[in-house]
């Protein structure tokens, strides 16, 4: 601790250089935190999806193609019922509220099937009753209610983008759940959407719950075989696969995130190493003087590495402060569609700090070791 003032003063020796290095580290770590948070959000959805036995039936051509309404009868029939229950029509509406920037995840569903199918969503019996009784009803996650300052009983209008209609919805209740991401969602009735679309019976997906894990492959076989030669061949997948497929539309994001992370670390190390090398070069004589005073090589090494660590950790502090403020505090998301929630997780903070520590250690090691090992007499002779 008694060396701290010395370390601090040395770190701030050339203020402009230190500020630029700090800003560079902070920016690069912010990028790292940003992409890692994106990845963890994707993995969070996949993780949540994996905990339920929900199965999704979609058109074999993907989400943009529609399924037939008559498929519902088959899915609710005896053959499938042995393996699954709670068949629910499920359309992602994809509309916005007031401004195209406000894009809450809205889904048109069948209330009676939706309730047991998504049993992790907790809402009152009164809310459920109103959801079933009122055609224009909508139920919303509490985070979404808070975000737009909505109140139960309020009427809101969603503006359709790819569905040519603007549902006017009455918020009849709110729901909670353990996953904050789901609390950003809202559900309204599929039959109301269908009415607005002049009863075209558009179904983008059917969701259901497999009775057991063993039933899932059987469901895939049965459903996809049944529709194989129809006008809407299906692809039956688990919710986890559905989540992964949805996110894969953004490309091989995991590889991209990994690449960016490695790149950030390398650039950070190179940038800080350059700063430390310059700082070490300027202080050859000073180091020799300190060693003449009795400082050991190890102490010089520790002081120089600590300076680099200090700058790196300050950069990490700035990056984490800004990230936590923007994403966790102000709840801003880079893409409300893909990331209704964008929260920096503790593990991301640990990785960012780890990257800063790695950068601090690696970048300073070579110049610090060279300084500490240089002969004192050579250092004293050096004219800087």
């Amino acid at each position, binding site marked *: 601790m008694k060396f701290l003032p*010395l370390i601090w003063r040395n770190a701030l020796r050339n203020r402009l250089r230190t500020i630029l290095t700090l800003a560079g580290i902070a920016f690069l770590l912010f990028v790292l935190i940003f992409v890692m948070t994106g990845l963890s959000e994707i993995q969070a959805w996949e993780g949540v999806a994996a905990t339920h036995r929900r199965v999704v039936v979609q058109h074999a051509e993907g989400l943009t193609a529609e399924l037939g309404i008559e498929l519902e009868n088959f899915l609710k029939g005896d053959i499938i019922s042995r393996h699954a229950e709670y068949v629910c029509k499920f359309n992602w509406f994809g509309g916005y509220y007031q401004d195209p920037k406000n894009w809450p995840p809205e889904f048109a569903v069948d209330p009676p099937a939706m309730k047991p199918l998504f049993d992790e969503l907790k809402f009152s019996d009164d809310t459920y009753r109103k959801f079933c009784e009122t055609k224009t009803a909508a139920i919303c996650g509490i985070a979404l209610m808070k975000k737009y300052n909505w109140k139960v009983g309020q009427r809101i209008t969603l503006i359709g983008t790819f569905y040519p209609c603007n549902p006017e919805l009455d918020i009849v209740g709110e729901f909670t759940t353990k996953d904050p991401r789901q609390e950003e969602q809202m559900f309204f009735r599929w039959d109301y959407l269908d009415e607005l679309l002049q009863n075209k019976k558009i179904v983008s997906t059917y969701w259901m719950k497999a009775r057991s894990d063993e039933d899932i492959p059987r469901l895939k076989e049965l459903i996809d075989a049944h529709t194989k030669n129809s006008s809407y061949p299906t692809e039956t997948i688990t919710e986890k696969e559905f989540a992964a497929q949805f996110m894969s539309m953004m490309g091989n994001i995991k590889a991209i995130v990994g690449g960016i992370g490695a790149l950030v670390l390398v650039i950070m190390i190179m940038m800080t190493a350059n700063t430390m090398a310059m700082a070490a070069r300027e202080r050859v004589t000073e180091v020799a003087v300190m060693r*003449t005073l009795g400082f050991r090589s190890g102490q010089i090494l520790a002081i120089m590495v600590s300076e680099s660590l200090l700058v790196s950790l300050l950069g990490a502090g700035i990056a984490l402060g800004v990230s936590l403020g923007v994403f966790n505090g102000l709840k801003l998301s880079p893409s409300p569609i893909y990331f209704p929630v964008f929260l920096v997780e503790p593990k991301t903070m640990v990785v960012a700090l780890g990257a800063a520590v790695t950068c601090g250690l690696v970048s300073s090691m070579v110049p610090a070791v060279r300084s500490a090992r240089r002969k004192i007499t050579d250092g*004293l002779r050096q004219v800087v």
Partner: protein
Amino acid sequence: MGSPVVRVQGVSKTYYRDETPVPVLEGINLDIAEGEFVALMGPSGSGKSTLLNLIAGIDRASTGRVEVAGSELSALSERELAAFRSRHVGFIFQLYNLIPVLTAFENVELPLLLTPLSKAERRKHVLMALDVVGLADRQDHTPRQLSGGQEQRVAIARAIVTDPTLLLADEPTGDLDKKSEEEVLTLLQRLNKEFKKAIVMVTHDPKAAACAARTVMLEKGALIAKP
């Protein structure tokens, strides 16, 4: 005079420039007693600073023995040498060599950071050392805010703050104006007489050397005056 605080016996030092040996010191024998003030004089390249460095324990003799305050320096490891310097040697440089980012107080405190003294004790020692050199009122000034003479006095305070056995000064007045030179020489004399510090001072200046009790001449790496 007391027993020798420095004993140099048969010391030679050879540097190698691309494998070519360059002898700098040859067969040096020198005793310096406790409380003695010795001036080392000689032309450039005569080996004065090299001898000073050997006594300071910042360089090693090629052959021979250098014994300071009872320690045979060639027998010490790098770590032990660092501890030796911290305990026994106060070094004063020609160009002061203060740490520019630290205040006068912090510069003087620097060697004390290597001791187990508490913050309060360190403060007491630093203020005492700054008082001895007459700069207690400049403790918060950085080197840039001090004159050359003042910088050198801070450097002397740094050298004496640990109460070392021996003060080594390498051309301490070489970069100073006349007035500052006199102040520094007076201070060194005071440290020698009042505080009984043994001092070895390298100098080109006969006037500076005259402040010492004894002058030792070096020429081409050999002593030409009797130790």
